C-alpha cells in the first residue's frame, strides 16, 4: 500500500498518514469514469447551439416562472426539513422510548419508495377527499394542486438527507461535551445552542443543502400533486420533460444545465464554508 504513494510536485512535506496514492487513484478513476464522462453527453448536446439560442430557451417566460415555483418550493421544503430533521436526529440518538426502532426505520422510507408512488400517495392523502385533506381544507389549507403540495412532496422525498447526515455526528459527540455545559449550570436551550449546535452546523447545513438541491431536481413525486398549471405550478423538471417529449434533446440539456450549474455552485459554496468552519473549530490549521 505504501508502495503506491507517490510524490506530487506541490507535496512539500512527507505525509504522515498512508493511502494517499491509493485513495486518490480510486477517487479520480471513479469520478472521471462514472461522474464526468457521461456529462460529456450533455456538453455535446449544448455545443450544437448558439449562445442566443441557449439564452432564448432558458429565459422563456414559462421556464422562468418554473424556476420561481421550484426554488420557492425547495426553500420551504428545506426549512421544514432542517427543523424536523434536527429534531428527529436528536430524538433518535439521545432518547430511549418504545417504538424507537420503528421510527428509525421510517426515516429511509422516502428513498425506498419510487418517487411516483410517493407522489400518488401524498396526492391521495392531501386532496380534498383524502384523510388529511378533509381536515385541512375546512381550515382554508389547500395542499394538493397548489405550491404547498409541491413543497410537501419535496420535503418528503428529501428528509432522509438531513436526518441521516446529522445522526452520525450527534452519535459521535462525546458525553463530556454536554455534561460539562450542564455542570456549569447552563439551561438546556442555551447549552444546546452554545455547545451542541456548533458541532452540528456542518452536518446540518450539508444535509439541508443536499435536501434543497435534491428538491430542485425532483420530478416524479411532485408532478402528481402539483396540478401543473402553466405559470403557476409548473416545476423546472417538468419543462425538461416537455422538451424530451418533443425530441428536443438540446433544449432539455440547456434547461438541465442551468439546474446543474445552480446546484453545483450551491454545493461548492457549502463545501468552502464548511472547510473554513472546521478549521476554525479545530483552532486553525
Amino acid at each position, binding site marked *: 500500500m*505504501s508502495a503506491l504513494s507517490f510524490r*506530487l510536485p506541490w507535496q512539500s512535506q512527507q505525509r504522515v*498518514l*498512508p*493511502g*494517499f496514492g491509493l*485513495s*486518490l487513484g480510486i477517487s479520480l478513476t471513479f*469520478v472521471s469514469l*462514472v*461522474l464526468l464522462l457521461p*456529462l*460529456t*453527453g*450533455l456538453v*455535446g448536446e449544448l455545443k450544437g447551439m448558439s449562445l442566443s439560442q441557449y439564452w432564448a430557451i432558458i429565459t422563456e417566460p414559462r421556464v422562468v416562472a418554473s424556476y420561481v415555483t421550484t426554488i420557492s418550493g425547495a426553500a420551504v421544503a428545506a426549512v421544514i426539513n432542517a427543523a*424536523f430533521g434536527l*429534531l*428527529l436526529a*436528536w*430524538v433518535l440518538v*439521545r*432518547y430511549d422510548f418504545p*417504538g424507537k426502532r420503528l421510527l428509525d426505520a*421510517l426515516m429511509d*422510507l422516502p*428513498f*425506498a*419508495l*419510487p*418517487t411516483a*408512488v410517493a407522489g400518488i*400517495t401524498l396526492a391521495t*392523502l392531501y386532496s380534498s377527499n383524502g384523510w*388529511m385533506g378533509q381536515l385541512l381544507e375546512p381550515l382554508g389549507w389547500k395542499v394538493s394542486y397548489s405550491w404547498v403540495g409541491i413543497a410537501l412532496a419535496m*420535503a*418528503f422525498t428529501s428528509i*432522509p438527507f438531513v436526518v441521516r*447526515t446529522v445522526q*452520525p455526528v450527534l*452519535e*459521535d459527540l462525546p*458525553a463530556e461535551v454536554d*455534561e460539562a455545559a*450542564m455542570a456549569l449550570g447552563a439551561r438546556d436551550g442555551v447549552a*444546546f445552542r452554545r455547545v*451542541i449546535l456548533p458541532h452540528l452546523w456542518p452536518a446540518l447545513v450539508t444535509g439541508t443543502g*443536499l435536501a434543497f*438541491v*435534491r428538491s430542485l431536481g425532483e*420530478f*416524479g413525486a411532485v408532478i402528481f400533486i402539483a396540478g401543473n398549471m402553466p405559470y403557476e405550478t409548473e416545476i423546472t423538471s417538468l419543462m425538461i*420533460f416537455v422538451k*424530451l417529449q418533443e425530441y428536443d434533446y438540446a433544449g*432539455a440539456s440547456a434547461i*438541465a444545465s442551468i439546474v*446543474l450549474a445552480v446546484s*453545483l455552485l450551491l454545493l461548492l459554496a457549502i*463545501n*468552502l464554508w464548511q472547510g473554513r468552519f472546521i478549521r476554525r473549530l479545530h483552532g486553525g490549521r
Partner: protein
Amino acid sequence: MQRIGDARWVRYSLISAAVAFSALFLLLPLVAIFAQAFASGWSTFIANVTEHYTLAAIGLTVLVTILTIPVNLAFGVALAWLVTRFAFPGRRLLQTLIDIPFAISPVVAGLVYLMLYGRNGWIGGWLDSHDIQLMFAWPGILMVTIFVTSPFVARELIPLMQAQGSREEEAAVTLGAKGFTLFRRVTLPNIRWALLYGVILTNARAVGEFGAVSVVSGAIRGETNTLPLHVQLLYQDYNTVGAFASAALLALIALFTLAAKALLEWRVSRQEVAA
C-alpha cells in the same frame, strides 16, 4: 451526570413532537400504501407479489442493489479518506464533483448515460457495432444506479471524519500502525455508524430509483423491468392493488437493511460488554 435535554418535560415534549411529525408525514403514507396493497385481501396480495413478472422484477432489483453497494462503499471510503486526511489542491472541487448525482435530475442522469452509451453516442456506436448491449439490459441499469447512489457513503463519512480530525490515526502511525491495519483498527471503529448509514441510504435509493432507470431500462417485462418500473406499469394499467403491493414490497426491502443494522448494533454492544 445529567446531559442536555434530559429533563423529563423536555424529553417528553421532544419525543412527542418527533413522533407526531413522523406519524403524519411518514407513517401515514406508509399506512396508505399498505391499505391499498391489502384492499382486496391477503390472498390477492400474495398472488400479486408471487406473480411471474413481479418475481423477475424483485430479482433484478435485488441483483442491482447487491452489486451497487460494494462499489460505492469502496469509492466512498477512499474518497472520504482522501479529502479529510490530506490537503491537496483541488480538494474542495473534488468534494463538490461527487455531488453531481444529487445536483442532476435523475431523468437527466439516465439521459446522459444514454447519450454516451446509446446507439448514437460515441461509445455506444462502437458497442452497437460489436453487438454488446449495455443500455436496455441489466448492466445499464446497474451503471445508472451506481451513478445515482455514488455520493451517499462519502457524504455520510466526510462531515464525521472532518469533525473527528486525524489525531488518533497520526498517533497510531507514530506507534507503527500501517495501511489497512490502521484503517481497520483505528478509523473503522470511529466511523462504523456513519458507514452503515451510508449503506442504508445507498440501499434504499438503489432499490427505489425510478427516474434514471426508466430511461435506460427499455422496460422489457421479465427482463429489464425493475420493481419501481413494475409499480409504474401496473398503476398505468389500472391494477392499483398490484401496483401498491409491489410498492409495499419496496418499503419492506428497504426496512430489511434497518433490521441488519439493528442486528449489528446488538452484536457490537454485546462484544463491548464482553470486552
